[in-house]
């Protein structure tokens, strides 16, 4: 059974919860929109969450 949620105006769907998807989602909220962040695996983060340090600042990727 498809559950129909209340129609929400001003929403954007972001498909993919990697660094690109998460950044797009964060920016959209700053621009005044509600975001559905759809990720096929169990947690967001994508490939970047697997990286240790990123060049050149050696920041923790998380």
């Amino acid at each position: 059974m498809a559950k129909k949620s209340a129609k929400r105006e001003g929403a954007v769907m972001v498909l993919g919860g990697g660094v690109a998807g998460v950044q797009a989602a964060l920016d959209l909220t700053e621009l005044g929109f509600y975001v559905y962040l759809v990720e096929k695996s169990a947690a967001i983060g994508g490939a970047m969450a697997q990286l240790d340090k990123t060049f050149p600042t050696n920041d923790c990727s998380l």
Partner: protein
Amino acid sequence: MEAGRSPNIEILSNADLLGLEGKPGDFTAKLRLRPRYIDADKCTACGLCTKYCPKHLTDSYNEGLDITRPIHIDYPQAVPATYFIDPSACMHIQHGTCKICVPVCRSRAIDFSQKPTEREISVGAVIVAPGFGRVPDEALEKYSYGKHPDVVTSLEFERLLNPSGPFQGEVRCLSDKRHPRKIAFIQCVGSRDLGCDNGYCSSVCCMYAIKEAMVAKEHDPDCEITIYYMDLRTQGKDFDAARTRAEEQFGIRFVRSRVAEVVDWGENGLKLTYSTLDGGHHFEQFDMVVLSVGLDAPADAKKIADMTGIELNSFDFASTSTFAPLETTVKGITVAGAFQGPKDIPESVTQSSAAAALASGLIKAQRNKGIVVKDYPEEVDIADEEPRIGVFVCHCGINIGGVVDVPGVDQSVEGMEGVVYHTDSLYSCSQDAQEVLKEKIREYKLNRVVIAACSPRTHEPLFQETLRDAGLNRCLIEMVNIRDQCSWVHANEPDAATEKSKDLVRMGVAKARLLKPLPEQTVPVTKSALVIGGGIAGMTAALSLAEQGFSSVIVERNAKLGGHLLDTRYTITGGNTADLLKDVTARVKKNKLVTVLTGSELVNTSGFVGNFTSVVKSGSGKKAREQTIDHGVVIVATGARPHAPEKVLGRKLPASKKIITQLELEQRLAGRAKNRAPGSVVMIQCAGSRGDDLNYCSKSCCIDAVKNALKIKEINPDSQVVILYRDLRTYGFAEEYYRKARELGVIFVPYSLADPPRLGATSRKVEVTYDDPILGEEVTIAPDLVVLSVGMVPEGTEELSQMLKIPVNADKFFLEAHVKLRPVEMPVSGVYLCGLAHSPKPLDEIIVQAQAAAAKAAMPLVKGEVAVEPIVSHVNEDACIGCSLCASLCPYQAIEMIKVDKKRKARTIVASCKACGICASHCPTFAISMGGFTNDQIQAQIDAFGAVDDAGAKE
């Protein structure tokens, strides 16, 4: 992490897209939500279930190098922080047995009755960002991947380097756990490889291989590392500098070659066979081989295309065009990240912001209609309370805990004055740790919090928000950095690191006793932008702002809009840049929200985010006039121009009409002259770049050279075209054109800066002499034309840097706030950056960057106000003698001199203040104090440093 805390982001994980219907502004998406078999509201992420689960499962988060259990969480900081059960491996779901986790879970969160559910959501716009996929295994097999355990992929190697990886960050051979003495990296595995249909370059592997090699060297300086490559494509901003460092400082060996195979060599480990350009075959022994695997299209690319209707390119990435790089073939659906084409993190992040700008423009009428405004509980007034301090010491996995005795540090605060609660935690930054923090604040009525963990730069905002959620002012936190300052720098002296941690924590507690709440302030915003530069970047940014509903003023120095694009003619994909320019210029001129001031220059800018005032001078001589413009944000898009090198390849450039630049060739080829395509031409790449005259790579010259070579061949197929290069950097899909050029007979010959080609010219002819490594001898030819790829230099960035107080890098390009995560923002709030003034790059990347800058610039305009950081300087007017020393020293122009009762006094402009403290440290009468860093607080810290045995310390 931040995404998990926003009330306006609903994370639908474990979800599949089933279908998408509708039109721009009104889409309906159908989703299937797969069960986690764990109730997210109940799970505390304690990890007990994973401990008891009897079944083994290879850990895909650790690239299969480790084992986990079917019931698990990928990593402790995961969002959402809820465990899940992998149904394909769970014995209960597969065979109806086991169920041991159910009684183990203390919060009764495990629920095997969960079923997949379907859900429809209505959205105005869609952004697809599914990332990248894995290259097929066949591409790895010839290197014995899968046959020999010590052949690993670069992602596996990344996990080996990681402290949370299988060997806690030690690099060990998987075969016998020994430390490898010799490691080889093989580049272009699954990239630039027609064998697996990946004809493109993955753009990121060269840089990540260098990074991994340098990190591995840091772990084990005695390890010998060789990188086997075809072209080193480190074209990103400041990337070449890293490559040089890898070679000169770290002693990493680079060998230009093609690797034929890697085979098992018994006790010797692995035998790597490679061939070099001169036709020689060589082999070498290695302990470990790392395959620098490329980025493939995402595995579900075709499914996404079916569901959404978007078209894919021949490599199954999203199909887009140079002039509209993020727009898919379906209106209202944009793409961002690696699915648009393989790319690095900064480009992905930039595309995400740009995609957000496009969506924001599309559905601007719906703005603010669907969002939830986050409410914080009212702040508890703690003015009259005695300090009640909570201390939280973080293990950061083994990042801190592996060196520092964290429980010991935790115990050391027992009994300190004001400390009513203390504990340690595995990851203080994880979502569940935030819940614990909130709970403890309430339970123990804490009114000051000390977090001993990492740098405040990374996670202080997170903890501050948690404090606000718990009803505390966010300035009542003190972070003690026992990671960078203890476990990292004293990794080899654990006892001393522990003692230092205790000292620092004691000092932090001493300061925390004196912390005071600081007020939250906001300032209103002028809702318009000033765009400096009217090239394609500036115009694109202004149009994007207009689409989102905001006005802007473009200030262009020249009489005509267009900038560098006025001089170009066509793109490598066949686009006509004149058409683009005509279209964009017309749209700019027609748009009522965009004001254009050509022949104008910025004279002066003052103010701060939300409230800038600029003076612009238009015209010259007697007709010159000045006008004042109020604006809330600034977009810097001042561009660059072709470099005019005096020295090329280490020598003075001979004067000859037969020596021209790539841009001049392009103009000539786009003309109508019959003999516009020369009969023979030698192109010289990096003429004046990469250590020759300029230090950096200009990123687009190789693509331009191939573009013009193809154009010559198109007009005159018999023309002889030779391209002398150092590393041919046709990254991404441009690689296809490189291959095409070779097929058409364009000759590519590499050279090194140590032995560069020599140019000679007389009045009638030019000569080029170079070493041909394939022939193994010196060649001299006298072509009709010599074409130099000269690179790009920024224009006037130094003056603007002074005026706006924004930094430039060593090459005089503007320096962004954070190269990875804030690529279009400047360190000064309210100032954004795009285009060639950031760094040289091709047209499609400029357009994306301009859209991204417009997204970031629109944020304060959307809000209508900016929040000021509570930590600012404060002038005590009674003590101020009005000497104005502080005002003259402030690097952000954040102090103004005012008259109070006819006496001069200094006052902080709070919105501009960056809390650097220069004013406070120079004030001769100590009239200035920094919120959160008062003299009392710092003195208390210093006193506590030597006060181990005094009151306030142990017992």
